[in-house]
């Protein structure tokens, strides 16, 4: 029963022709339209080159970003080294000054008179 109904539906829904002049009417309507679709389709070779170019751009971008990151890290390390050196020199000078002050305090008060 079900298959019979489906078969009859298929028969009842056979496609119908719109008439001989249908495509002519459509083309007449399209003639009023600007041919804005007239873009030649990309050939596979062009598509391949486009993909290659895009991939190259991505790789170059990643390399540049990596180099920038390395340079920034090196600059940071150099700044850190210079800061440590400056602190070390400052420490030495302060130590020296401290020693001079201590020696002057320990000297007898009449020794210079």
């Amino acid at each position, binding site marked *: 029963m079900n298959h019979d109904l*489906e078969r009859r539906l298929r028969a*009842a829904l056979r496609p119908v*022709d719109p008439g001989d002049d249908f495509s002519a009417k*459509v083309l007449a309507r399209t003639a009023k339209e600007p041919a804005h679709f007239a873009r030649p389709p990309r050939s596979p070779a062009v598509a391949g080159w486009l993909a290659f170019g895009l991939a190259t751009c991505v790789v170059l971008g990643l390399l540049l970003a990596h180099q920038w990151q390395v340079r920034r890290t090196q600059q940071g390390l150099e700044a850190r080294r210079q800061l440590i050196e400056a602190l070390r020199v400052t420490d030495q000078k302060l130590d020296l000054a401290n020693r001079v002050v201590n020696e002057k305090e320990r000297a007898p008060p009449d020794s210079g008179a």
Partner: protein
Amino acid sequence: MSGDEECTGGELLTQALAGERAAFGALVCRHQRAVYSLALRMLSDRHAAEDLAQEVFLQLYRSLASVASEAHLSFWLRKVTMHRAIDRLRREPRHTGVGLEEAAALAGEAAEGDPILERRLRSLLAELPSAARAVVLLRYQEDLDPVEIARTLKMPVNTVKSHLRRSLAMLRERIADAAAADAGVATRVALPGEDRSPP
């Protein structure tokens, strides 16, 4: 269109994309039957169906660059036709049933089968809600499976199956009712004859 037989759909599409109007015309010839038939069964009006089918091909002409292949073209045409038809039915709901013009147009086609039953089926189909009608048409006119119908109409597969089940049940019931009514009329027509016959 002679190019229709000579070229494949893909070649026609490529040529149409390159701006060849003849190739676009051949594409129209190749798909006009399917597009017009879907529009006609959805709208039940020949003039409205022809107008809608022309609009679909005009839209195709405008957005041909977005069509990737012949298979995509068929899918695109079905989708746009159905969505436009459903939109039009929402905007201007039509009478249900098959008009005289359509019946006359289809009379010549029913070379086999039962033309009265087929007309009755089409008439019952026109009484279905637009979404259910679209599902039945894509299933039995375009021979799509429920997954393809779901993709075309942008609805869940279960909804498609549910529409199909309910629509078939309704059609079966209405056909059975009509057959029973016809049998009743035949009996009533036959009875007076029996009364008049000699004992």
